[in-house]
Each structure stands twice: as C-alpha cells, then as structure tokens.
C-alpha cells in the first residue's frame, strides 16, 4: 500500500518535523518543477473552496497538472457509484489523490483501495491533517520552536475538528494548554484525559481576557449557530469570545492569533491590522505545507 496521509496519528514526530522542514524549503523557493511529469487529482465530494484551492495551488507550484471535481453533481456518484469504484478509477489516472468527503472514515477506506497515495482533505467531522500541519508550521515559523509554548484555544472546543487534531499533535511537544469555551462547547473529557496521561498541563476557563498576557499562540475558532439546540443559547455566547484589538493590551510581543477561517464575528476587523494577526499568513503557509505533504508522500523529498 502506498504511503498516505489520513490522520495526524499516522505521522511520527520526526515525520511531522520533516514535513515542516520541507514546507520551509518550499517557502524559500516556491516555484518548483519537481512534479512536472505528475498528475494530481483533487476529488471533493462536498464543496470546500478554500481547501481545494490551497491544494491545487500547491500542486501547480510543484509543476503538476491537476484533475478532479469540486462537487458530486456532475459525476457518477449521483448514479450511485461507490466510493471504492471512484477511487479505483481515479487511482489509474493520477499519481496522488486529494480527497474531501462528508463521511467519517471515508479517506482511510479510500487509502485501502487506492494504488496511489491519498491525502485526506477532511473526512466528515473526523480528520483534516493538512490543517494541523499548517497550524504547526505557522506556530514554528512565528515562535521559532514548538516547545515551551502556551497555546490558548478559544470558541467551539467540543465539535472543532481542528482544535482536537492540533491538541493531539502539540501534545508531542512541551505545550501548556488553556481552553476557553462556554460549558456547552467545552473540550471533551477524552482529550483532557489524553493530556493527563501525557502529564501535560491544561486549564479550563470561561474568560479569555485573563489568559491573553501569558499566551504565545491564541487559536480562535468559530462558534457555529447549528451546534446549539436552543437558539437563545447561541445568542448568549456568540459574542462572548469575540476578540477585539483593545483586548490585546498587554500581550507578549511574540503572541500570534491563528484561526482556521472562515471567521464570522469572533475576531473583530480592527484586529487585522495588529502585529498579532496571523490568520491570513496562516492560509498562505497552507500552500507550502501542502507542497511538502505532496512531495513527501510521493517520495520526492
């Protein structure tokens, strides 16, 4: 079976660091002809414009040609084709497949029936490992180290796929975690146990402001209305964790704010012009990270 990237758990710490190192190399030299004889397929069974454009940019910057679809309306999936058959077919066309699918576990299954490497670009609520790696790349790039940092996670910590994966990856390093969320969206106990088993320090809080002065990385997430059974509850908490520029005084000089985007009202636009805002650069880092992932899986770097 070719090497695929399905879950952040598939990577050993050394492999993660190797991919981050490759990403830094691609950032230095973003135009490459490494893949000019390769075809990359991006097959998106549900729309995700941001992720798809990022992967396609990465493939293009590596010199590869790109095939694929961005939603299933015009494909055989609407005729009832199984995921297995779609993957079998595409793996005979392309050298690597990037897949986004609404069902949990679909990417793992795809990697078991494919003859070429699979990159999971999001399988339902389960995993999205390239997001985690680009988050880590952004942390490494802005802090020069992944060790000894205070990572404050804010917003929807219950359902947020990105915070769970980032937590698990950063648990390989010496990280202090602060979880800021309303009780309805608190970090699930399985992740707190996970940190406990690794003797890592974490703190839960309902207030963001007291934690800003000690934070190195502030990881904001969107609180989604559809997560709440009672719309009144959403109205109560939706603006509780909205970050404004005035809240960033005082803060550490190295503090950076990350957000997987899209944001709604959890980061006020006046934050965009502060030196702490890093979410748009974070999106650009995604391209270098995805170039690194593709090159790594194809064994070219």
């Amino acid at each position, binding site marked *: 079976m070719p090497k695929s990237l399905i*879950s952040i758990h598939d990577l050993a710490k050394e492999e993660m660091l190797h991919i981050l190192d490759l990403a830094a190399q691609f950032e230095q030299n973003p135009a490459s002809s490494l893949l000019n004889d390769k075809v990359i397929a991006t097959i998106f069974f549900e729309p995700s414009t941001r992720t798809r454009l990022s992967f396609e940019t990465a493939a293009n910057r590596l010199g590869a040609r790109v095939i694929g679809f961005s939603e299933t309306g015009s494909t055989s999936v609407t005729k009832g084709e*199984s995921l297995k058959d779609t993957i079998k077919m595409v793996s005979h066309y392309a050298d690597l497949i990037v897949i986004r699918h609404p*069902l*949990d*576990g*679909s990417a*793992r*299954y795809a990697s078991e029936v494919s003859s070429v490497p699979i990159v999971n670009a999001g399988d339902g609520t*389960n995993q999205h490992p390239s997001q985690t790696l680009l988050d880590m790349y952004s942390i490494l790039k802005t802090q020069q180290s992944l060790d000894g940092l205070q990572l404050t996670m804010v917003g929807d910590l219950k359902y947020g796929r990105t915070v769970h994966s980032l937590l698990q990856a950063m648990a390989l390093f010496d990280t202090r975690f602060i979880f800021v969320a309303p009780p309805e969206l608190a970090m699930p106990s*399985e992740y707190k146990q996970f940190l406990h088993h690794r003797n890592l320090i974490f703190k839960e809080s309902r207030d963001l402001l007291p934690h800003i002065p000690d934070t190195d990385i502030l990881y904001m997430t969107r609180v989604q209305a559809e997560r709440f059974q009672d719309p009144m509850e959403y109205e109560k908490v939706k603006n509780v964790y909205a970050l404004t520029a005035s809240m960033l005084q005082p803060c550490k000089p190295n503090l950076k704010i990350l957000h997987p985007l899209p944001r709604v009202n959890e980061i006020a636009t006046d934050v965009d012009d502060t030196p702490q805002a890093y979410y748009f650069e974070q999106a650009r880092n995604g391209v270098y990270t995805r170039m690194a992932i593709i090159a790594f899986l194809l064994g070219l770097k």
Partner: protein
Amino acid sequence: MNMDTDKKLKVSAIKDGTVIDRIPPQSLFKVIEILGLDQTGHQITFGTNLESKHLGKKAIIKIADSFFEDEDVNRIALIAPDAKFNVIRNYEVVEKRQVEIPDQIRGIARCVNPKCITNHQNVETRFTTKKERGGISLVCHYCEKLTNAKSLQIITKSSAYTTDF
C-alpha cells in the same frame, strides 16, 4: 463438581462436541447468531437463566459433534467475555478454553457513529479493542470514534462457523 452434576440435570449431556458455559443470559441468542449455530445441522441444546456462582444467572449451549477454532471462540468476546468453551470427548471434558479479547475485531460489531463510512457503503467494520473499567470499548479503524459496551450492536451473520467433527 457439584455444579457440573447440576448442569447435567438441567441440560442433557452430549457425547462429543462443545459446551459453551458462562454466557450472560441476555447474550445467548447473539452468541448463537455470531457462531452461526442457527444454521448448523448438529444437535443443539441450550438452557438459560440457570444459576451461576459467577454471573448470578447464566446461559449454556451444548453443540454435538462441533468444535471451534480460537478465532471463533474470540468472536463472542465482546458479548460474553467470561464464556468458557469445554471440549467434550466421550462425555468427558478434555479441554477448557477461555474467551480472549482480540486486539483487532473485524466484521462483528457495528460502528456507533451514524456518519461512519461503514454504515453507508459496503465496507467491513474494523476496530481495535480497548479494555476499560466499564468493559470493552472499540475504536473504529475508519472514523476513529469510540463504540462502548453499552452502545454495542452485533452484526448478525448467517454463515456457519462451526468446524465439523
């Protein structure tokens, strides 16, 4: 020995075959399904809600002229972790086998996550087992979600798993 005599009174003895003992009563029919005993042509007798020192109440199955591989024995680990397989030859117990929880389980249980690929497409379920205080729980190989003993659903198979004598 008293218990053995007691059992013989309640469920008739077999000459050759297997006696599966210490099955939780609520799991009896699931054990029958998992082992494919509903498809076998061999003589089967079973009793349920029998008194048990260990379980309070238990069920027992006697299958004439049938013997089981370790793999089959472990298939019922999820629903009858205390079960014992006694191999009978000429009315005597010649071997006792304890169920062991395998590290990996394929195709026996259903994933509790309704959005898991295994609940939508023709994909065999696959889990790694995790021993916890509340019993066994399963981590789905595909969606990575946890299925605990409470929410466990067994996939019934009609194929027979008994090895003929």
